[in-house]
């Protein structure tokens, strides 16, 4: 139930409603239905929803070393992506963007060669 109210709140805000007003409307609607006690749970569900949406739209570019960012940004065309460093990649980069991954790391290339060579 709280998920549905949280979703409704999210949609109100997405439509341009001011957050404070949207929350007031949800509170009024809950009170009218005798479900005012549900409000804290709706708040928590909204928080999770907002986190998920933020995660969904997050763009992360993982590089092997500091200093590789410029080249990685150029190759991946992810100019606004958040940068992370993972030395285990050896070289190259990985891009996580809107639920998709592009793996151009040396580690994965070496691993695929290793797996193909050791497969008897």
């Amino acid at each position, binding site marked *: 139930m709280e*998920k549905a109210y949280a979703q409704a709140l999210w949609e109100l805000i997405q439509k341009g409603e001011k957050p404070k007003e949207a929350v007031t409307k949800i509170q009024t609607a809950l009170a009218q239905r005798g479900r005012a006690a549900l409000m804290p749970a709706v708040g928590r569900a909204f928080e999770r*929803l907002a986190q*998920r949406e933020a*995660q*969904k739209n997050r763009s992360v570019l993982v590089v092997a070393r500091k200093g590789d960012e410029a080249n990685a940004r150029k190759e991946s065309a992810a100019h606004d992506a958040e940068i992370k460093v*993972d030395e*285990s990649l*050896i070289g190259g980069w990985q891009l*996580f963007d809107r*639920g*998709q*991954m*592009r*793996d*151009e790391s040396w*580690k*994965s*290339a*070496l*691993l*695929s*060669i*290793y797996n*193909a*060579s050791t*497969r*008897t």
Partner: protein
Amino acid sequence: MDSSIVEKIVKEIEGYAPKGGHTNVGRITAVGDGVVAIDGLEKAVMSEVVEFEETAGKSLEDSMHGEGKLLGLILNLEEDSVRAVILGDTARVKEGMVVKSTGTVLSVPSGDELLGRVVNALGEPVDGKGPFKKPTMMPVERESYGVIDRKAVTTPLQTGIKAIDAMIPIGRGQRELIIGDRSTGKTTVAIDTIINQKYEPADKRPICVYVAIGQKESKTARIMQQLKDNDAFAYTVIVDAPASAPAALQYLAPFSGVAIGEYFMDRGQDVLVIYDDLSKQAVAYRQLSLLLRRPPGREAYPGDIFYLHSRLLERSARLSDAKGGGSLTALPIIETQEGDISGYIPTNVISITDGQIFLEGGLFNKGVRPAINVGDSVSRVGSAAQTKAMKSVAGTLKLELAQFRELEAFMQFASDLDKATADRIASGQRMVEVLKQKNGSPMPVEQQVIDLFAAVNKLFIEVPLAKVKQAEAQWIEFINAGYSEVLEDIKKTGAVSDDSKKELTRAMEAFRGAHGELFA
């Protein structure tokens, strides 16, 4: 370093082409009891295979020495996440791990190189004989053949068990349930059927697939050894999902078994698949469904438990000539509790299959083995597949035995019986003796016919009950030694000709004369 290894690596490097492109990914938000909740994977489809990305953050060396790919199977598509079952070691999965979509449904390897091998529910070899070289991948979930692609069941599948081949005949493409309490000989019937296929000519011999679900590894090892000892392993594949395997693999194993069998059926060959047993698969599926938070129904089984078994068993078929004429016969096994065949899962499977062989604990304990309850056992399509020879000797056998069982109950209370009743009881008792058979000793059909011919023509009626098995063995030996042309004729024509009948009647007279000591 071995130069061949270096050459291989050089070849791989030369041939390496970056995969490129994008992969749909999600992240694990919750893990528990073999089930994961995954956020993301928005374009996931039902029954899609996903790969858990275990190499993230690990060094190249650690990644190289990993335990191989860890896969999952999507079983729930929810509003804001998907739920998948882990097809492997659940301890390798961690919260926050990246999950990659593969865009494929689960498939298992099949082909000739699987014969004589033991594989797990994912089709990976577990017998230490190395990986398969060029297998054909078969989808685990596939729509069954429709009406137009099928034809009637008319070819017999000989089990080598007299009681079954005579009274509950099974045809190629049929689904015959083996049902009974624990330790009543269900697996023995199935294994004897596999062993008996060695008597079939190589070009018509069915490929056998034995699917062990939730069984002890020691039992599966024993079965494998028994098949090897009887030269039956060369045409058999064992799919093993032991009791220690995750519920997801126990649920998948029968589907993997049928997928392996379908490869041969599609090639026009005959296949026999044994599911040992579907009760354990139902329990594994119940566990998964509850963990996936699907609403429970009767006995806490999910609402689609009937569909689970019907879609599996519907994949048994005898294909039309246009489709190659192959067949897939299914012998599912169901374990009952205290002989109750009216339980939820037993009634479901009884209604799906084309008949059942009911094994009874009481008969088993009385020494009647195989402990087949003739009254409750039935084959709905098999009679059309029975050979003329068998029909001619076993026509009234079932009725006679059923009458004997009634009289047997009556006999316990009656002190004085009229001659007709006493004769019928004596005849019934001898027939029961004749139908007894040791495990691991299936009998070729022509010998069964000879044996039953003698029994229905009252050869053993004057033989003391304790000596019937001895007399029966000597009778078969007698025919093999002096009348082998009759056996050959039955084997060749599949019928007992008038000449053969006369010859057998003469043989019976000669046997009486030669073995007077048995008729004392």
